[in-house]
Structure formats: C-alpha cells, structure tokens
C-alpha cells in the first residue's frame, strides 16, 4: 500500500502556518532555500511520488504558481506528475495530468493508495489536510519549522482528534535555520483491520 506523506511548509515554532501576504509569509519566501528549493533529495522525493494530491484551495494556488513560474525547481516535476484534486465543486481541472476526486475521501484515497508501493505527496491546504488527519490517513509528516514566532496565523494542528506519539525519523536545520522534521505515524494494525467494527 502506498504511504501518504504530508508536506507542511511554512510552519512557525508556535505552531502557525504562514497565511498569504503576511509578514511571516514574506519572511518564509525571503529565505533563499525556500524561494528556490533545489535540495536534490527533496526534488527526488517529489519526482518519485506515485501521485500528488491537493484540496481545492491548494490546487488553485499551486497550479497557478507552477504553470507561471516555470523556472521554479518544482515546476517541471509537478507539471508532468500525476495529480488529483479533491473537490466536490470543481468541474474541470486544467493543470496537465490532473483528475478530480469528488467521492468519499477515504474511498478516493484507497483508490490511489491500494495496489502498489511508494508514496503519495499531500500538499494541503489546511482544510484538506485536517480532513485526512481526522480520518487518520496520513502516514508521515514532513514539517518545515521556521525560526519564527508568528503570534497570528492559521493553527495547523487544530482539533487533532486524539493524542498520540509520533516516531521521529529525522531532524536537521537548513543554512537559514529552517528545521526540517520528519515524523512517522506508528501503525499497529492495517487500515482494513482498523475499520473492522
């Protein structure tokens, strides 16, 4: 079964996400390694994904950005990759190689993750991300924590349904002080077993 790996960019030490057009947002994209992310392992992680999945808001923002900024290191990878946007209202998705998943979220995820190995990258946005957290479908978290106390913003972990320990896989700082954290959600049973009453 393919793993769902959520990427959380622009996370502050106080647990907030950078909302567009805030000082925090500007701070994040002023850091060179965040403006032009060219770390080979990160690019390989994106390149080797089975699929990239988005909620509607993230899809609209990222598709516009990646089709416009063709010199961004992610652009050629994402433009060519298999993409799925989760939305019950979108009727068309113009970004190349994109399909729309309009059904039950858990069933749509199963369609993507069953029948193979590898990983699926979850891009967000926060509403989509929270719906996957509530369904406990995220297997790994990759969090970029910025050296910043935001004070205001969108709280990423809001309404986490229950407390649980994560497995810390790795942590390292970038030259500008972004701490890259990788966590795994420990699983003692398979999803099919968990769903059994």
């Amino acid at each position: 079964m393919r793993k769902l790996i959520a990427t959380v960019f622009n996370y502050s030490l106080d647990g907030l996400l950078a909302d567009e057009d805030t000082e925090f947002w500007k701070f994040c994209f002023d850091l060179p390694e965040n403006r032009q992310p060219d770390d080979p392992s990160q690019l390989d992680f994106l390149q080797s994904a089975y699929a990239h999945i988005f909620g509607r808001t993230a899809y609209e923002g990222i598709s516009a950005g990646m089709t416009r900024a063709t010199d961004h290191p992610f652009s050629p990878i994402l433009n060519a990759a298999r993409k799925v946007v989760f939305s019950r209202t979108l009727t068309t998705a113009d970004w190349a190689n994109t399909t729309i998943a309009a059904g039950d979220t858990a069933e749509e995820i199963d369609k993507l993750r069953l029948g193979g190995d590898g990983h699926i990258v979850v891009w967000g946005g926060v509403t989509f991300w929270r719906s996957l957290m509530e369904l406990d479908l995220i297997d790994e978290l990759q969090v970029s924590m910025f050296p910043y106390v935001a004070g205001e913003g969108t709280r990423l972990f809001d309404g986490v349904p229950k407390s649980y320990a994560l497995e810390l896989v790795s942590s390292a700082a970038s030259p500008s002080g972004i701490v890259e954290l990788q966590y795994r959600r420990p699983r003692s049973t398979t999803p099919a077993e968990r769903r059994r009453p």
Partner: protein
Amino acid sequence: MTKVVAIMSMSLDGYVADANDGVAEVFDWYFSGDVEVPTASGSSGMTFQVSPPSADHLRGLVAETGAMLTGRRTFEVAGGWGGRHPWDIPAFVVTHDVPEGWPRPDSTVEFVTDGLESAVARAKAAAGPKSVGVHGAETIQQCLNAGLLDELHVDLAAVLLGGGVRLFDDLANTPAVLGNPTVVAGEGVTHLRYPVHRP
C-alpha cells in the same frame, strides 16, 4: 554576561502539558533512553535516562545553568522540589505572596514578590558566570514579553497532544524573527536552541 535561557519541553502541536496538566508525554524523552544522567550529586539530585545524543546535550545544559527561575505554578506542581531544585542550583520563584511554610531552613528556593525584573536580576546574580534557566510557560511568556530572554531552548517532543497548555500564548512583540537554531537530533525529541533578538 549572564544569559537568560528558557528551557521547556513542547509537543509538535505546541503544548507543554496536556489538558489535565500532565507532562508525562512531553517529558517521555527524559526517561526513555539507556544513558543515565544524574543532575547533581547527593540526595537532592535526580537521574534522567536518555538516549546518547540527549545525554550530551543535557549534561551541557545542566553544567551551564547556575540558577533557575520559575513561576508559582511550576513550584506547586513540583512540590517545591523538596526545598532544593534537583539540579542543585538556587531556584527563584516569582510569586505575589510567599507560600505558607516557606522559606524553609536549608532550602535553596527563594521567593521574589517584587516582580519579574527583580527576580531575573536576583537569579542572574546567583548564577554568576553561568546561565539562568527559565522554566514554566507563563514565566517564559512574561520574560519574552519583557525582553528579558536571551535564548529559547525547546525540546520538541515527537507527540501530538491535541490540547492543553500552550508554550506560546499571550505574546506581545509578535511576529518575532529568531536566530538560527542549533539542532540536536535525539530519539523521539529534537533539541532546538534559538537566540532571541531583543525587541
């Protein structure tokens, strides 16, 4: 110059204690490794059981900390440390009134009733060339807001709590850019140390 360093364990979602004031989850890393780190010789000390990278980190932290500053809540939760902080350093408690039965003879716990700045000054004097550690969410917030903190030291525990006591709450002077952190990757915990730019 004596540095003032906040020291706190925090969950990935930003909590230093769960909804019942419990700290077992965020403190788990202190007791889940193979290396014993005693905090002081003698009966007042305690012994941590941590992973090798955390042991190095913790030994350094204990060695450089010359006094501890906390709020009343931390003092109460710790039962007054039996009159002697487990790191065997003077502890200063910021409080409105001195609790009944205190100060005690032979105790190295002191109470400061004339405000935070006075408490920081007294802790600095006691620490001498070493650092002052600040413990407790509310006291750390007050130090941050008053521009009294030099470093923010967060032991980021690999756990989601979903609710409880937040480390970063009621902050003035935000947003705030921090300096680049030093990062020590432990097992189940990431030790982060950020320089704080004074507002």
